[in-house]
């Protein structure tokens, strides 16, 4: 952020976002709608979904106005039906005819950009603030590279290698799987090389892809007729992941130090008994390896979680702090440690309560996220937005995206 932008932000008036819902209240909404869905053998599911979403929209308040969600259950019903059909086709197909898994994977990757565009459009057009609808104007063509690229491109080296192997035994129809397996065994080095190359491509592309995805979502979203803009640059995302990579590096450092210290102070001088068999005392190297394994098994999940929480918080902050709407700005101040704690404690509580805590968990997360989001406006500017034309949109992309947990939300 340059100094001009910082100075400009100081002139703006802050309006904090607040979440007015409560866990107990949402639990009642959730469980009543779940029971109705089960009672009607799933037919009520679209109505349940609309009510759950509306609860969160209506309780999100900023500058004396709340949001609302207007999707009609009928539309969602069609989308859910299509998503269910797709799920059944995928589930049966990949079980009955395993080779079709590969086809489904490709279809799936090509489907992601479509689902993103459709889902964004659906959610935008049926969301409102101050009785003005949002809209989303991005297209499949614009979404294809940012959303399918990071999954497809890193696979290319391995795919190319497999294609070469397959063409080598093209005339031996019967034993092709056997031959392919043998080829793979004798070309282990090439395969590992291709995989590593794919990994490097993925690592190098990922920050760029996230930049492109975030920018795509921001600049094609409109409030009324007014588009959002995105001030972040590619370098901001590479910087973010550069800082994020320090977490595993520092984590490894701590692990090595811990192992070294533990090995120093605790090397057993006497052998132990494994059942009837006496074991000689371990050599320092063996002991080091044993301690190393123990420490790693504790440290790895912690490091992974810290990385996940950091990236999640930093990406959210980066997005909102660089998204603009006319003269308005946003300020997002999520703290990775707090976010990580909420994620872990929520997941644990959900498991311990067999799922009953889920509504409280959702409200708790929503409240933390909104408590850290502020809208900054020039005086009186919130009144000046103008409505666009309203156009209906199908829910298929939204429902397919939700069913397969595609990352369609930012």
């Amino acid at each position, binding site marked *: 952020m340059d100094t001009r932008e910082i100075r400009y932000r100081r002139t703006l008036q802050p309006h904090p976002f607040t979440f007015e*819902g409560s866990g107990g209240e949402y639990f009642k909404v959730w469980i009543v709608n779940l029971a109705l869905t089960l009672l009607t053998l799933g037919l009520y599911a679209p109505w349940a979904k609309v009510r759950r979403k509306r609860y969160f929209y209506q309780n999100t308040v900023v500058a004396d106005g709340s949001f609302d969600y207007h999707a009609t259950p009928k539309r969602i019903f069609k989308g859910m039906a299509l998503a269910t059909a797709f799920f059944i086709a995928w589930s049966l197909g990949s079980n009955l005819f395993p080779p079709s898994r590969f086809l489904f994977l490709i279809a799936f990757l090509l489907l992601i950009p479509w689902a993103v565009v459709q889902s964004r459009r659906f959610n935008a057009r049926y969301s409102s603030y*101050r009785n003005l609808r949002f809209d989303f104007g991005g297209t499949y063509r614009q979404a294809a590279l940012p959303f399918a690229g990071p999954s497809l491109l890193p696979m290319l080296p391995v795919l190319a290698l497999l294609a070469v192997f397959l063409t080598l035994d093209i005339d031996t129809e019967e034993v092709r799987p056997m031959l392919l397996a043998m080829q793979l065994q004798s070309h282990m080095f090439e395969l590992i090389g291709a995989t590593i190359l794919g990994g490097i491509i993925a690592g190098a592309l990922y920050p760029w892809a996230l930049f492109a995805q975030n920018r795509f979502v921001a600049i094609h979203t409109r409030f009324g007729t007014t588009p959002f803009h995105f001030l972040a640059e590619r370098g901001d995302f590479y910087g973010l992941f550069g800082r994020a990579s320090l977490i595993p590096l520092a984590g490894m450092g701590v692990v090595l130090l811990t192992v070294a210290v533990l090995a120093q102070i605790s090397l057993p001088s006497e052998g132990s008994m494994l059942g009837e068999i006496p074991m000689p005392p371990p050599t320092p190297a063996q002991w080091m390896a044993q301690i190393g394994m123990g420490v790693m098994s504790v440290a790895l999940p912690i490091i992974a979680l810290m990385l996940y929480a950091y990236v999640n918080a930093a990406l959210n902050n980066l997005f909102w702090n660089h998204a603009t709407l006319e003269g308005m700005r946003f300020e997002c101040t999520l703290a990775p440690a707090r976010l990580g704690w909420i994620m872990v404690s*929520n997941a644990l509580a959900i498991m311990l309560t067999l799922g009953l805590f889920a509504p409280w968990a959702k409200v708790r997360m929503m409240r933390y996220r909104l408590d850290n989001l502020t809208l900054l406006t020039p005086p009186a500017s919130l009144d000046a937005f103008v409505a666009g034309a309203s156009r209906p949109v199908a829910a298929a992309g939204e429902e397919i995206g939700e069913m397969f947990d595609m990352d369609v939300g930012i």
Partner: protein
Amino acid sequence: MGDWRGIYYDGHTSQQVEVDLAVSEGMLVLTVGAQPLTRHPLEQVTFQTPIGGRGVWRIDLPGGGCCETRQPPPIGLDHDWVAPLERRWPVALAALALTVLLSWAMVAWGIPALADRAARLLPTEVTQGIGDQSLALIDRMLPPTNLPPSRQNHLQQLLDRVATTLAMPPMRLVCRRGGNLGANALALPSGIVVVTDELNTLARSDEELMAVLAHEAGHVQGRHTLRSILQNSAAALFLASLTGDWNGLAALGAALPTALFNAQYSQQFEREADRTSLDFLRREQISPQVFADILGRIEKSGHHGKDPAPFLSTHPPTDERLESFRPLPPATPQSGD
């Protein structure tokens, strides 16, 4: 004016207008200060009850305008029949009990019944297709048999006898070395039974072999492979519909129940196949003890590694299975040896 206040939006701009609301002579009247703003007949106005009950009431006006207010409308103007249910704790607790009950019924009874129906509807080509796939997989995993052709023929004759006794169409027997599987037999949905050399060595009599073959025939007869694929898919779909709006780490919590369902379904199929075997032995007037004997020996010959917890295992506990094969009076002492 009255004390029913709200904010009016015309639907064309984001401008907020503070208004007073009132109902008079069947009309909803909005006024700014003392100036009338709009009046609409009540039947053209939609009152939207806030979900959960505490939030903002939204009043949709004809022509795209709307009014947001925190005070509920005077009387009987909202028609949302779910909203009162969502506000009461006793209703929520009843809904919870109902949800648990219905989920249990669905998983324990509904999904297996549906899968059974669906399996009957699917054409035999599908079963054939899965069978071919599995055989190709077995060809890749298990090395060819070392048994002489005469022994293989003998085993085929035993399988033929099982099929005749159980009034089933004939099945094909395929021998393979067991490798990691050890002493084992597998049923492919297309009616092929795979027997490992190790099992052949382990069996002490034709009766024991036939007991195992009848168990596998039970899998074929019950179309268990197809039904388990259908059941597991349906259970996954059902679970996804319950936990659909969980995300991130919480979604991991949904993986355990899936494994649990799959294991329980698999155990049911094993019990069903055991019953087929028992049925065969009864018809042939062979003591059920032979199945208990070979099962016990297979168990002992198997890997001595850690078994998964009983509720996650694909097979019911062997003790429990042996129990049903003991001739009731009196229990024979050598069982399980």
